[in-house]
């Protein structure tokens, strides 16, 4: 359910052990109330905790999956307490008020009695069906049938008769449950996809929205936060991936293999200061430069999981202070991290002369799709790119051409389907007709144009740093700040440079005002991250664990103390008697379980005799019952000494009655 089978089994054992252990506790109404309040407190804290560490879409299923563990205190009260059911007033304040009022007015108290075990059982089943393990295929296929079979078995053994109708009913309910489960799966997938704030990153392929219609929908949630150190300027573009092959509407990495990734070297110039170097073949001197104190740097905060690409400026030299299990980098400079905690923090040092990327591979970095080559040549002619002397001039020409003739828009108008013949591709239509689009169009077109002009170019995706939060003095990177641009090979300097051809209106078009809901979500995210970062520091972690264990110990001692005071032994307790001395049970008491099957459990206030007399329809007017009841009463309530004959006679009569009951 919560991915911890051992914990589940342990909890199950604890709850079930109530059937083997005879110790019972006498919980007063006040104690159960307190226990429920404690339970609510635990659930509340757990809710806060889960919502802190998870995105809201995923938090609810996780919370439900943990419900059996969270409701355990209440269930323990139910299974180890003397009372068979808890009044509704334990759980509901309104019901409690009503009960108090009724008591004061002397009215009959209609408060519902609830056996918490049933609620707990339902909660466990829901949790089991919602748990993370259910998504793995063999398990989810087996879960529902198993559940139905178990339910059927239980029902069959209790109802006994009419197996056919039971089978039909089970088939129906099983079918409905199956349909419901499929629907739920779809819903949770949908929610999960919406919820995963960062699209799944693939270092080898990036699908663009080229040729798609409609507005681009990006999450406005905060992805990363940057704090630049004093005197450092901010980076403009933070790259998460680079690709070099355009195919259809997808940019891919020609060397589609994970082997392209290599682990980053690290050096430790001083104790406790570990630097990861982006470039692996540096001389010791160059290494020193790469971590140089005069280089600009920023600290980045954010949520990450294994293989999350770290957004870095193109000319990053080294990383420090990250708590990582590993970090690797491919030959295009895409850096993936394997963080120790889900929330990371670290410093990035950049603007060095070293580049993590390998030099261009002309075979790949100059390729353009055949169908677009004609229009690209035409445009290059129009810009007169050949007449520009330097790379910088060429880039400036392209930039100004885009600036002059194109408009930035997040509403896509070009469809890759049903193109009239005059446009060969979406890029073609973008360049000649529509002339408005988002960064992916600009970056792709530019990459192709530059390649056509003989300059090796790659396509880079990542984030544009454009929002500064002055209250927290940090840059905020949201999903809406996702961006795409080009990496252009500067042959003279022999390294790659960033070139962002998208017209500047990009910044104007992004609304900087955030809705109130977004502000709350930002606040929650920031709070959560800061708290975890604070907690993850070794010293703080110790403080937290010490404080938590002292608190937990205190609560445990308090509960244990209270428990030891109200402990009772079941043998005495089951009688639920007002009389504390040992009483003699006659053999007629042995009939009780059998009678319970026919009559339901005996009301607390009904004497055994009159209760058993209701069994007459099954016993067929037997005088043995009357005699047995009389004998029972004599043995039980007559303080004068009784003879062995009487108790023997009662045992005989009980046996007769028992066999009669079993037969009918």
């Amino acid at each position, binding site marked *: 359910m919560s991915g911890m089978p051992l914990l589940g089994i342990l909890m199950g054992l604890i709850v079930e052990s109530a059937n083997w252990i005879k110790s019972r506790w006498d919980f007063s109404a006040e104690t159960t109330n307190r226990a429920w309040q404690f339970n609510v407190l635990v659930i509340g804290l757990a809710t806060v905790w889960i919502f802190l560490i998870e995105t809201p879409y995923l938090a609810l299923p996780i919370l439900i999956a943990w419900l059996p563990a969270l409701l355990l205190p209440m269930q323990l009260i139910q299974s180890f307490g003397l009372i068979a059911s808890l009044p509704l007033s334990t759980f509901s304040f309104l019901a409690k008020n009503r009960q108090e009022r009724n*008591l*004061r007015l*002397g009215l009959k108290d209609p408060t519902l009695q609830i056996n918490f075990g049933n609620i707990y059982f339902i909660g466990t089943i829901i949790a089991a069906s919602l748990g993370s393990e259910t998504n793995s295929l063999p398990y989810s296929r087996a879960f529902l049938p198993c559940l139905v079979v178990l339910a059927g078995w239980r029902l069959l053994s209790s109802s006994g008769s009419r197996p056919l109708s039971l089978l039909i009913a089970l088939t129906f309910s099983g079918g409905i449950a199956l349909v419901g489960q499929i629907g739920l799966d779809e819903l949770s997938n949908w929610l999960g996809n919406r919820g995963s704030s960062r699209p799944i990153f693939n270092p080898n392929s990036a699908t663009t929205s080229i040729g798609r219609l409609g507005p681009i929908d990006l999450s406005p949630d905060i992805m990363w936060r940057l704090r630049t150190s004093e005197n450092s300027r901010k980076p403009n573009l933070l790259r998460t991936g680079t690709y070099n092959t355009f195919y259809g509407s997808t940019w891919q990495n020609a060397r589609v293999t994970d082997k392209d990734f290599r682990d980053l070297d690290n050096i430790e110039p001083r104790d406790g200061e570990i630097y990861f170097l982006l470039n692996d073949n540096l001389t010791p001197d160059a290494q020193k430069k790469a971590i140089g104190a005069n280089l600009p740097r920023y600290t980045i905060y954010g949520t990450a999981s294994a293989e999350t690409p770290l957004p870095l400026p193109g000319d990053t030299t080294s990383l420090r202070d990250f708590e990582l299990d590993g970090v690797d980098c491919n030959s295009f400079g895409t850096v993936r991290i394997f963080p120790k905690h889900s929330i990371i923090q670290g410093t990035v040092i950049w603007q060095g002369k070293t580049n993590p990327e390998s030099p261009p591979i002309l075979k790949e970095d100059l390729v353009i799709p055949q169908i677009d080559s004609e229009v690209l040549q035409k445009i290059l002619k129009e810009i007169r790119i050949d007449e520009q002397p330097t790379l910088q001039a060429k880039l400036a020409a392209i930039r100004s051409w885009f600036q002059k003739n194109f408009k930035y828009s997040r509403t896509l108008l070009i469809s890759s389907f049903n193109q009239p013949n005059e446009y060969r591709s979406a890029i073609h239509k973008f360049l000649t007709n529509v002339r408005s689009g988002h960064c992916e169009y600009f970056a792709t077109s530019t990459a192709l144009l530059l390649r056509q002009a003989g300059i090796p170019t790659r396509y880079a995706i990542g984030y544009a740093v454009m929002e500064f939060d002055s209250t927290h003095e940090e840059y905020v990177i949201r999903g809406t700040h996702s961006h795409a641009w080009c990496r252009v090979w500067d042959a003279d300097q022999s390294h790659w440079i960033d070139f962002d051809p998208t017209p500047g209106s990009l910044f104007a078009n992004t609304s900087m005002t955030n809705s109130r809901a977004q502000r709350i979500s930002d606040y929650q995210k920031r709070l959560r991250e800061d708290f975890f970062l604070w907690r993850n520091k070794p010293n703080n972690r110790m403080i937290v664990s010490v404080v938590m264990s002292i608190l937990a110990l205190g609560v445990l001692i308090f509960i244990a103390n209270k428990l030891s005071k109200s402990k009772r032994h079941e043998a005495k307790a089951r009688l639920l008697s007002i009389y504390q001395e040992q009483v003699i049970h006659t053999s007629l008491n042995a009939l009780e379980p059998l009678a319970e099957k026919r009559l339901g459990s005996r*009301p*607390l*206030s009904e004497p*055994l005799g009159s209760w058993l007399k209701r069994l007459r329809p099954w016993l067929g007017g037997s005088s043995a019952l009357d005699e047995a009841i009389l004998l029972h009463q004599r043995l*039980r*309530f007559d303080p004068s000494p009784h003879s062995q004959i009487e108790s023997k006679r009662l045992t005989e009569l009980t046996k007769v009655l028992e066999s009669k009951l079993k037969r009918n």
Partner: protein
Amino acid sequence: MMNYTTAVRLENAVCSVVRGQPKVIRHVLACMISGGHVLLEDFPGTGKTTLAKAIARTIGGATFKRVQFTPDLLPSDILGVSIFDPRSQDFRFHPGPVFTDILLADEINRASPRTQSALLESMGERQATIEGIKHDLGSIFFVIATQNPVEFRGTYPLPEAQMDRFAMQCTLGYVSAAEEVAILADQTDSHPVDSLSPVATREEIVSLMAAARQVRFSEELRHYVVALVGATRGHPAIQLAASPRASLALMKVSQALAIFEEQDFVTPEMIQAVATDVIAHRILLAPDAKYSGVNARQIVNELIEQIPVPV
């Protein structure tokens, strides 16, 4: 045993006259056997007087007196008075109606509290102190008081102390249509009470009373009785709870009931049967409970349901 037959004869005789009330009759007779007094709270015409008369008639040699309580009734009208006899030049004591075996105090709540209280000593201690002289009352002395539950104008509700003196408060209530038809048939010629002949002697009743005290009562049931009575204390709807006298009465009445059930020991069923009659009239409801429409009997019934019975 002899006791049982006496009790059963007594019960059958009364039942033949007062139709359709076997349970109440048994309770009232048990109350008498236990040495307690009973308060019948019922509407006029439901047979309270007939019941009292029938009981008196079935006991051979038992005297029966009836006092109609009115606002101007004085204590001396009940207890008796000394009157100067000019012939003997002396005060002669004229015993009041209290000197009897069975006393029917009809509409007891119509008399002033002073008069009502005149009965207190007699009921509690079976004696009357008149002008400083103690007079013992008969060994049976059984008071059947009645009051009308609806009419309150010109009445003086019984003081709590007086209420506590009654072992039980019973209600006859209306009988079924068939029983009422039988009543009409019975009374076409004469009232059946007039033709009732004694089935037991005074001495037999006295020995029954002694036998009731011998009925065995287990320690566990004593705890049960105390738990039942004790439950009234601290109940939020109850202003004045039942006293230990209630526990005592509950024990005695259930012992007497055992005789009618032909048992020589008490079972929890017997205690439950009389518990409401014994406890309910002794408790005083809190004002907000009273005005919410519940009565003491309902609350006591609820308490009986809540307390685990020994099985």
